[in-house]
């Protein structure tokens, strides 16, 4: 995974959370607003429809009561019994006008019209076919309801009434297709009441009603009651309509030109639901020219047949506008809150990441050697404080240890220096004494200070041999201590291995070789050169040549051979001697190990020479080994030429 900076990572996480909120809030807001505004609007319309129905129902009852109470009046009964038609005509016409009825007629007990108050010239026709009248006659009770009235009947009541009902249908989008082009019938709220004689017998029927077509009283009352005069952008917010069938016959829905939208028709959808199925319709609907939240319910005649529709609607625009505005405000709040959240989230991100970054820097400081570096342990985050405290503790400990180490190292260095000075002094002093003693002994042995007898010679010989051993031992121990202290540093120069190393070594041991009557064969190539430490190579040569002479057979051969093997020089020091066994071979180069043989017993040794030799050769990037031969042994080593 690609690693990011902590700060950025925390911020991204926080922004992610914020983003989820930001994205979910509008969805939630949209849902809540819709639920609260739109659905409430819809619910309100449903309630408004109930109010409208009550008003409509009220209108029916008012008419019924007018008819009922008029039928109970004495003059009606008296005039019928005395056949005083003129009085009836006069009185009824007055009542019709006073009660704003379109029709107020009186029939005899069989339904034959006695008085037609609006059109007094026409009478005598039988209205017993009228449902209401039939009910009033048979039940002797007042009845009322909404009825469809035919054109003929309307004309009977007055040409003007027929004309008020007449409408040329206006083509309406979404309406159910129809072949009809005009509406000739009318819809009336009608009531009928029996007129009873003093003996309780039926003497006549009084009936009347109001034509709803182009009568705006009810719809305007609905509007007035439910919506007062609230307008939205110049438009009435609330509307009410009465349909005859699917045609608007009374409405306060306005067309574009501001006139009442009568003669237009209901949409097919509503038609099917309300007129065909006789059910309510509550939904948004496109009414004439605007979207409304609407409710429709059927208007039924007294037989329960659906003959029209009662409608109320609230202009949808105020609600959608409110919805939109609320949503915009909501979005603004969310947006501001988001911005604030983003800005504020940087604070905890910083609070977390800053101490971590500081600690990171602190670890870098410590790794750079600035031990004891501290971080702030007051970050406001408990876990980070604990971490910081532990870190500081660690830092302090590290620093302490470092200081202790420095002190210890200083002490060690001082001790070492003292030791080295001591060794230097001792070696210098001892070597000086050894050198002069040895030189003196050789002077005696060689007869430089006068002739000595054989016995004296042997004694002196022993002295010189032991002094030589002492000197060798001393230098080996010094070399060993250098190796063990890791001071074996090479000072490489170009060295001729024959001239500078092995010849001096052979010369140094010439006396011993002569004493053992050995034959020395030096086959080393004169041009053999290596970049090596001359002093150390002398130690090697002295060890190998010394061993070869010391442990070789009397009258034996010592042979030096050389060759180049790739980038390495190989030198072989052979002597005639007893070949070493495999077990001996293993021990040969180990520290303080000496072979327990007759030859080695005769000669003294520290068991250090070959160990030191091996270490020096290893330092020169080479190796040394022994190869037992038929009549002797070969010590062979290789070192890098490095030239």
């Amino acid at each position: 995974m690609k690693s990011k900076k902590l700060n950025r990572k925390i911020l991204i996480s926080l922004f992610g959370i914020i983003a989820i909120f930001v994205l979910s809030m509008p969805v939630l807001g949209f849902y809540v607003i819709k639920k609260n505004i739109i659905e409430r609007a819809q619910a309100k319309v449903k309630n408004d429809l109930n109010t409208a129905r009550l008003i409509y129902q009220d209108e029916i009852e008012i008419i019924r009561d007018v008819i009922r109470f008029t039928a109970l009046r004495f003059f009606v009964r008296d005039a019928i019994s005395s056949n005083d038609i003129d009085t009836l005509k006069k009185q009824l016409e007055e009542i019709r006008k006073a009660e704003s009825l379109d029709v107020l007629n009186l029939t005899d007990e069989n339904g034959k019209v006695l008085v037609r108050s609006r059109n007094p010239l026409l009478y005598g026709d039988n209205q017993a076919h009228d449902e209401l009248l039939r009910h009033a006659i048979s039940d002797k009770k007042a009845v009322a309801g909404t009825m469809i009235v035919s054109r003929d009947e309307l004309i009977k009541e007055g040409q003007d009434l027929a004309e008020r009902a007449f409408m040329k249908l206006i083509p309406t989008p979404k309406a159910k297709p129809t072949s009809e082009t005009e509406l000739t019938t009318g819809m009336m709220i009608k009531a009928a009441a029996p007129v009873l004689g003093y003996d309780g017998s039926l003497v006549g029927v009084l009936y009347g009603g109001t034509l709803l077509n182009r009568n705006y009283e009810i719809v305007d009352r609905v509007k007035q009651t439910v919506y007062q005069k609230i307008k939205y952008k110049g438009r009435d917010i609330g509307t009410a309509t009465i349909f005859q069938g699917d045609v608007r016959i009374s409405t306060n829905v306005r067309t574009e030109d501001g006139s009442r939208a009568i003669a237009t028709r209901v949409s097919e959808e509503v038609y099917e639901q309300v007129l065909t199925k006789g059910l309510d319709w509550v939904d948004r609907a496109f009414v004439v020219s605007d979207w409304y939240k609407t409710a429709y319910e059927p208007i039924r005649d007294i037989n329960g047949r659906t003959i029209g529709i009662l409608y109320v609607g609230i202009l949808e625009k105020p609600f959608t506008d409110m919805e939109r505005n609320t949503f915009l405000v909501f979005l603004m709040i969310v947006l501001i809150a988001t911005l604030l959240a983003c800005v504020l989230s940087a604070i905890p991100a910083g609070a977390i990441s800053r101490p971590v970054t500081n600690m990171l820097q602190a670890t870098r400081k410590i790794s750079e050697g600035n031990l004891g570096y501290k971080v702030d342990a007051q970050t406001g985050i408990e876990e980070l404080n604990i971490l910081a405290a532990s870190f500081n503790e660690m830092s302090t400990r590290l620093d302490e240890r470092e200081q202790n180490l420095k002190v210890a190292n200083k002490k060690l260095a001082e001790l070492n220096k003292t030791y080295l000075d001591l060794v230097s002094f001792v070696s210098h002093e001892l070597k000086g004494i050894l050198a002069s003693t040895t030189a003196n002994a050789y002077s005696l042995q060689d007869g430089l200070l006068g002739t000595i007898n054989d016995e004296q010679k042997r004694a002196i010989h022993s002295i010189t041999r032991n002094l030589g051993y002492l000197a060798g031992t001393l230098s080996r121990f010094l070399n060993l201590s250098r190796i063990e202290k890791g001071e074996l540093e090479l000072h490489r120069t170009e060295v001729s291995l024959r001239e500078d190393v092995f010849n001096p070594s052979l010369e140094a041991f010439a006396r011993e070789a002569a004493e053992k009557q050995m034959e020395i064969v030096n086959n080393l190539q004169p041009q053999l050169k290596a970049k090596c430490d001359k002093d150390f190579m002398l130690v090697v040569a002295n060890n190998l040549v010394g061993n070869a002479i010391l442990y070789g057979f009397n009258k034996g051969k010592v042979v030096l051979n050389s060759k180049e093997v790739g980038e390495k020089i190989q030198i072989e020091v052979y002597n005639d001697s007893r070949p070493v066994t495999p077990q001996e071979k293993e021990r040969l180069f180990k520290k303080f190990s000496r072979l327990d043989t007759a030859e080695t017993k005769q000669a003294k040794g520290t068991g250090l020479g070959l160990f030191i030799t091996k270490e020096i050769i290893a330092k020169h990037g080479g190796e040394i080994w022994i190869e037992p031969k038929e009549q002797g042994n070969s010590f062979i080593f290789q070192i890098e030429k490095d030239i």
Partner: protein
Amino acid sequence: MAKKKIVWVDDDEDIITAFQPHFEKRGWQILSASSAEQGKTLIQQEKPDLIIMDIIMAGEHGYAAIKDLKNEPGLANVPIVIYSGVTHRWGETTASRLDAVRTEADAFVDKSEKPSVLINTVEQQLE
């Protein structure tokens, strides 16, 4: 063949005495000096064929003396053999100073070596 003249500077006179017979046997004359200062004066006077120089001495050390001698125009060609008990790398200061001076000297023989090693070295340097 004229006798070879060798100036030997060492504060340990025993060592010079001990080698006396060996050097005389080979026809070499030893002129001894027990300090670096004395040695330098002697060398100026005698113009020897070879100089043997100790390193650690009371007074001036052999390091400085060798440098001085090698810088002396008339003496630059006179071979100098260091004969010292100081092995070449004891301690930091000794090691670096010794290394420096060894490059100026012509040969180095450790005092733990056999007398013959010194004698052979001197013989070589005189040739």
